[in-house]
């Protein structure tokens, strides 16, 4: 039982529920240029950065699935986008990035912006209307800038959840 507390299989879902709740209740009320920050995207991106492609995929899927439960958008869309995002960001993980905060922030910035654009694209492909508009530009920028600013604390939280019980150095 105690060992389960150290398992990412427990910590990641709990983190996902907490972050999704905070996002939908608190963070979504903060409006900057008509868009709100998105911590759920941040969690998926830094999970890949911290845990690599395999853990990034799993964490992205779990986080996206939880986000889909809380929203009325097509079910499975966030799970699809975030699991691929976690995987792709995880591929960029290497020694150079591990020691360079600015590089980490840059990857989170680009990854977050790409996730927003990818979500709008995939949503449009699956029939959602009014998603792929000019408003996507400020939305992607707001999400990317805020996520980049929160990279350092987010990576600490991600290490706690995704690398739970793992004694390998990050």
């Amino acid at each position: 039982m105690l060992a389960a507390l150290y398992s990412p299989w427990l910590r990641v879902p709990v983190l996902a529920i907490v972050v999704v709740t905070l996002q939908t209740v608190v963070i979504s009320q903060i409006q900057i240029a008509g868009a709100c920050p998105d911590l759920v995207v941040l969690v998926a991106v830094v999970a890949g950065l911290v845990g690599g492609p395999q853990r990034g995929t799993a964490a992205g899927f779990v986080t996206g699935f939880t986000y889909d439960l809380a929203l009325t958008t097509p079910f499975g869309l966030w799970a699809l986008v975030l699991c691929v995002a976690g995987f792709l960001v995880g591929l960029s993980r290497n020694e150079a990035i591990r020691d360079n905060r600015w590089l980490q922030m840059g990857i989170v910035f680009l990854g977050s912006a790409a996730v927003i654009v990818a979500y709008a694209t995939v949503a449009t492909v699956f029939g959602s209307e009014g998603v792929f508009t000019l408003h996507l530009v400020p939305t992607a920028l707001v999400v990317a800038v805020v996520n980049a600013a929160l990279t350092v604390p987010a990576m600490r939280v991600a290490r706690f959840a995704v690398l739970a019980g793992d004694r390998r150095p990050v």
Partner: protein
Amino acid sequence: MASLPVGRRRLLILFVITALVLLTFDQRGNRVLDGARTSFLTVTAPLRAVSRLAAEPIGNAWKGLTNYDDLKRQNDELRDEVEAQDGAAIAAEAVMYENQQLKSSAGLPTLTGITRVKAEVVSGEPSNFDQTITINQGSRKGIKVGMPVIAGGGLVGRVEEAAPRQSVVRLLTDPESTVGVRFASRPCTAAGSPTTAPPTTAPTAGATTATTTTTAPTSTGAPTLPAAGEPVKGAPVQAPATTVPPSTTTTTAVTRVDTELGRVRGRGRGNPLEVDQVDAEACLSLGDAVVTAGVTESLFPRDIPIGRVSTLERRPGSLDLLVRVKPVVDLQKLSIVQVLLYDGDAAFAGK
């Protein structure tokens, strides 16, 4: 470039396929997924309440700091508007009452006869791509999916999910939201252009403001095409000899004609709504009121205000008019709403 280990690829493929399966089921409508969402809403309700309580003071302080000037300006403007509309509101209430009486006697559903559940908005739009709000009343109060939601001056949206103690409401501004509407247009002259007398107020729920009370009710259930020999749309309608005696308060026998129908769609947060399927020859003007059409089997009862026409463009070569509507309700600042316990099918079946 080295190829990816098989394990990584398999995991990614597994998750992608799972997500695609979920999407496919959701596109076709799946009660398990709907139930999962409702259950998630119920289970996380305490956590959401705690988060909201904890964040409310910070949010209020932030809004006070960033929006103070706007709030002050809006407050001043609203005071002026309220004063200007007091008189018009009194006249509108009298007309609305008469309208509801006439509909009742004709056996038509009326807004005054619909039970309402008052609810507080507990959380606003949850993400950049989801135009919904959560309210603190649910199926325990009789709320069901599809029921219309109003606030103050007009329509807000409809219930999308209904848990026992909470419900999710899809706002009018959501691109997935569509509502059948009609225009409370001014009567047209013989040349087809509207008359110059503008309406003095947006119609309150259930009202069809008119310059006279002489005619038979202009709303007679599902809109029908004019019979042979009757005036075409937009032209003044003559009062039949057998109806209520003409009013002594006006010298003109002109009745507002509500015949233009369309379908309004959301265009995202803060954007005006867009109306589809409006004939290019329609007799419309900027400022015309837009209300729910309430046709047979509609999810919405008739005559709920939606907004006013803010854009009219006649596009060359198109059969439709580009019409945009500014909602009468500020959907970004909702706090108290009412859910109409309205069943469209039952209403038109006379139950």
